[in-house]
């Protein structure tokens, strides 16, 4: 029956392109950059903000290994979730991929990579977004 249910997609549509391209907000008054869409600058109170593409490079600020995966990810296995400080100063929570926990540390340089983040069901809509992976020579 779940295959016939009305998909919960409208919210995903609204956010999809922002997630694909890592779009945030920049305060035109104080210059601070924020993850996500903001109407008021939490730093200086200005209402003049514009959408900007956030930096696709940064450093691991903090991280943890999720070993007891949530239900929809139970086959996904242990994975790394981190707070990444982007080169433009803002911080976001993201998954770190293409490496094992032993290969990273606080301060490890990472870069954005486009990945699948989930799906509604086997017959449902697939969700994509940026995750991060360690920067390797050249790549």
């Amino acid at each position, binding site marked *: 029956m779940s295959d016939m249910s009305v998909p919960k997609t409208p919210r995903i549509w609204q956010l*999809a*392109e922002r997630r*694909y*391209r890592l779009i945030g907000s920049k305060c035109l008054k104080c210059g601070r950059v924020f993850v996500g869409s903001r109407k008021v600058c939490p730093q200086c109170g200005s209402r003049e903000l514009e959408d900007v*593409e956030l930096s696709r490079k940064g450093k691991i600020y903090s991280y943890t290994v999720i070993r007891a995966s949530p239900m929809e990810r139970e*086959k*996904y*296995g242990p994975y790394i979730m981190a707070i990444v400080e982007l080169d433009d100063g803002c911080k976001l929570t993201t*998954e770190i*991929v*293409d490496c094992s926990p032993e290969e990273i540390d606080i301060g490890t340089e990472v870069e954005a*990579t*486009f*990945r*699948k*983040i989930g799906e509604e069901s086997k017959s449902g809509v*697939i969700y*994509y977004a940026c*995750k991060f*992976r360690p920067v*390797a*020579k*050249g*790549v």
Partner: protein
Amino acid sequence: MNFKGDIPAIYGWGSYIPVYRIKLDEIARVWGEEPARVKSGLQVEEISVKGRDEDQVVIAVNAAWTALKRAPEVSPKDIGAVYVGSESKPYAVKPTATIVAAAVGAPVTIRAADYEFACKAGTEALISVMAQVVSGMIRYGLAIGADTSQSWPGDVLEYTAGAGGSAYIIGSKSSTSVAYFESQYSVATDTPDFWRRDEVKYPRHMGRFTGEPAYFKHIMLAANELMSREGLKPSDFDYFVPHQPNGTFPVRVALRLGFKPEQVKPGLISPWVGNFYSGSSLTGLSRVLDKAKPGQRILLVSFGSGAGADAFSLVTQEAIEGKKGLAPTVDDYISRKKYVDYSTYLKFWDKIYGV
């Protein structure tokens, strides 16, 4: 030259290959085959494997991002068409091309579609973009060939089915394009050498029949058609890049056409990452562009089962030197790797049912 007005040209090129690899020794161990015999027959050491969060869309988008890094003068807002060739789309119905267009920041006023012609769907996408550019319908277009190549567990295809792809930003030839197309010829016949029926997960093929009357016949027909119509011979080319279902076929078809091993080797990727299906010959071309010097001539010939081949003659330009360093090369991606065993490979592919 079979273009009458504007000349189609490449502005940016880029590839993406997942980080995971499986050695052919490991696959052979599982199926009780003799690894040395399998590897010497196919001339493939290891293949790339999609990660648990990677699919054909992921490969297409990351390749497009890499290509755009090499075309800083092209604004995504000037892209008028996004075409993606593949045989492993995660959606049977819903274009990958629209996801790519959103992910690169293309405007909503674009043409977007997915192409299917087995392993030559990527070059069909490229031809469509080239045609729209030179006809003046669009200023720039994005053409992609990408696959997470599918195979039945235990089938001979499993030893070569890799994952990866490449993207090309196409516009009319100018001083900032990196290579222009001299000519393009294609062939197609009704040949059932390899297919996948609707709702079936993995493709089937005619085994040995896929070599002579399919791969060799069509690639040689298309290559010879281009060379005879344009008055070119193998020695006029610096590089020959054919489709790469394994490591032996590309070299054999090169020798039969009259090319030397050193003309085909720079574009070979299959020995280290396997067959990218729609992304195969386009990633071979990407590797050649990573190394080519200005003024060199390249013959690219894709092959798609079903069957057909697309042949392209290209000449590199001065601007190629300044763009090579703007993004990671194919060899950067090939050398970045982590090995997985067969059971992890099955898990990443979701081939373990009932769990």
